[in-house]
């Protein structure tokens, strides 16, 4: 019976089995709370009678997810906002920093890719700036910009710019001479050549860079929001840790993963739309 199913169906069944087994092991691994027996005077005074904090079982996390997702946009003060609002703030920062980066990286990458001189002149700067952890920019950003929200956006900008810049330059430099010659023999101007030949030819490489960048931006925003505080999914995780609400921490970790997956899937779709076979 199993052999008759398609590859995807078999994989889906296996995924569900692994999920179920994982959840069962997790549920079973949580030690049951010991019944409070006879306590000494000292134990009673130090709170030994209260249940110990532990990793919550999956059933509790699912219950939390149900509560949060059934009302994701409530706003009950600065430290009590729905998960939807927190993710919304994070997405707003990621996307604004990311699109600013794209606005700079793609035209600059075009220039670097077209001109070997520009490539050689700018390469040392890129090589020095690229390996810097984006969070290392935070203190400088806070000092110069004097606004924690804008500083978070700046950090996203600086971490998203490199993969897009390098991939655009690489893609543009790698456009086959034949295709450029086709544009030349058809008397296309520089701008028309850029938009009708070089851009579509380099698009798969450029979009790959954009996809890497959005992944990195989503990784970095969590850490950045833990630092700047106030709103966002990163702040939410840290706030719930301070509240010792591990159920919420686990729930928000899962939400970070799901949103990251959705962002990646969007860029994968874009990648498919610009792909071509030679």
């Amino acid at each position: 019976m199993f052999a008759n199913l398609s590859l995807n169906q078999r994989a889906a069944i296996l995924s569900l089995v692994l999920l179920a087994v994982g959840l069962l092991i997790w549920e079973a691994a949580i030690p049951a709370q010991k019944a409070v027996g006879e306590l000494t005077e000292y134990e009673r005074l130090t709170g030994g009678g209260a249940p110990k904090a532990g990793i919550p079982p999956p059933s509790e996390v699912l219950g939390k997810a149900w509560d949060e997702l059934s009302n994701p946009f409530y706003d009950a003060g600065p430290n009590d906002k729905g998960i939807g609002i927190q993710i919304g703030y994070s997405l707003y920062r990621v996307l604004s920093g990311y699109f600013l980066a794209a606005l700079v990286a793609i035209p600059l990458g075009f220039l670097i890719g077209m001109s070997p001189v520009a490539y050689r002149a700018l390469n040392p700067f890129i090589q020095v700036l690229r390996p810097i952890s984006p969070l290392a920019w935070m203190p400088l950003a806070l000092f110069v910009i004097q606004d924690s929200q804008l500083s978070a956006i700046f950090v996203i900008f600086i971490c998203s710019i490199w993969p897009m810049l390098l991939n655009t330059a690489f893609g543009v430099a790698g456009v086959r001479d034949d295709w450029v010659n086709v544009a030349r023999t058809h008397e296309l101007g520089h701008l028309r050549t850029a938009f009708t030949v070089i851009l579509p030819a380099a698009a798969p490489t450029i979009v790959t860079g954009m996809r890497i960048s959005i992944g990195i931006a989503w990784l970095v925003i969590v850490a950045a929001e833990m630092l700047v505080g106030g709103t966002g999914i990163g702040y939410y995780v840290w706030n719930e840790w301070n509240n010792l609400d591990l159920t919420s921490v686990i729930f928000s970790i899962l939400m970070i993963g799901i949103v990251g997956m959705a962002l990646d899937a969007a860029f994968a779709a874009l990648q498919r739309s610009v792909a071509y076979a030679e």
Partner: protein
Amino acid sequence: MSRPFLSVEQLTQQFPDGQGGIQTVFENASFGIEQGEFVVILGHSGCGKSTIMNILAGLAEPTSGVVKMDGYAVSGPSLDRGVVFQNYSLLPWLSALSNVTFGVGARHRDWPKSRVTEEAKRFLSMVGLEGDVIHRKPSQLSGGMRQRVSIARAFANQPKLLLLDEPFGALDALTRGTIQDELLKIWGGTEQTVFMITHDIDEAILLADRILLMTNGPFARVAESVEITIPRPRTRTGIVEHPNYYAIRNHLVHFLGERSKALSGQVPGDAMQRPETVRIDHTAREPAPDAEDAPAPLRAVNS
């Protein structure tokens, strides 16, 4: 002497040889092409055929010398000189039709889209591509079909000079034959001036009005200009029956096999180095063939 439509004058190409010296590929190459003529250039690899083609296309600059078309010196690529590249050079993200409309649209920028599409479809059907096939991407087409699209794109531009750089080099022999026929058909209807590179002697005889023969490089030169004295329209099976066919073929084989090497590096005093004109015609000496009014009777091979 009247000026030919296209004249190549004292073209020299030198490259650094990588050891501090200079390598001269060809020197003082000069020849002319008349309007409406189909000229094929034959020569061994490395004699600079492709370099000459790139210079004619305006994609490369010669070390010295000029190319004049219609009396004006050529500089840079232009729509007046269309190119069909050996590797087709279709844009892989566009469909076959869009590749041709790309060319037509570049030529006629003021045309409405519908007219551009119509014109592109007309030229695609001339090379035998019609129906759903024209909406496929180049990667979904066979090599032969891709080269047809490329030929349609070049002819649709109606350039003053069409340059074909070994257009059938990457195709198998059977496909090559069919597309040669398509090329002859589309060329016959347009009076297009064509300059073509090939390695294939039979292809050259079938297609050309005149064949330019190049000696081996370095210091290659255009040594001979052989007139193909076989009347048109020609077919692949028809030309082998013609009395001039084997004489011309033998001359070409002989040149490529021996004389291209022997003549290589010889620099005659004449600075212009016009190719020597060779005309092989056996029809005049023989009695008029009766094949003209009746089908040729079967002949014994060893008669």
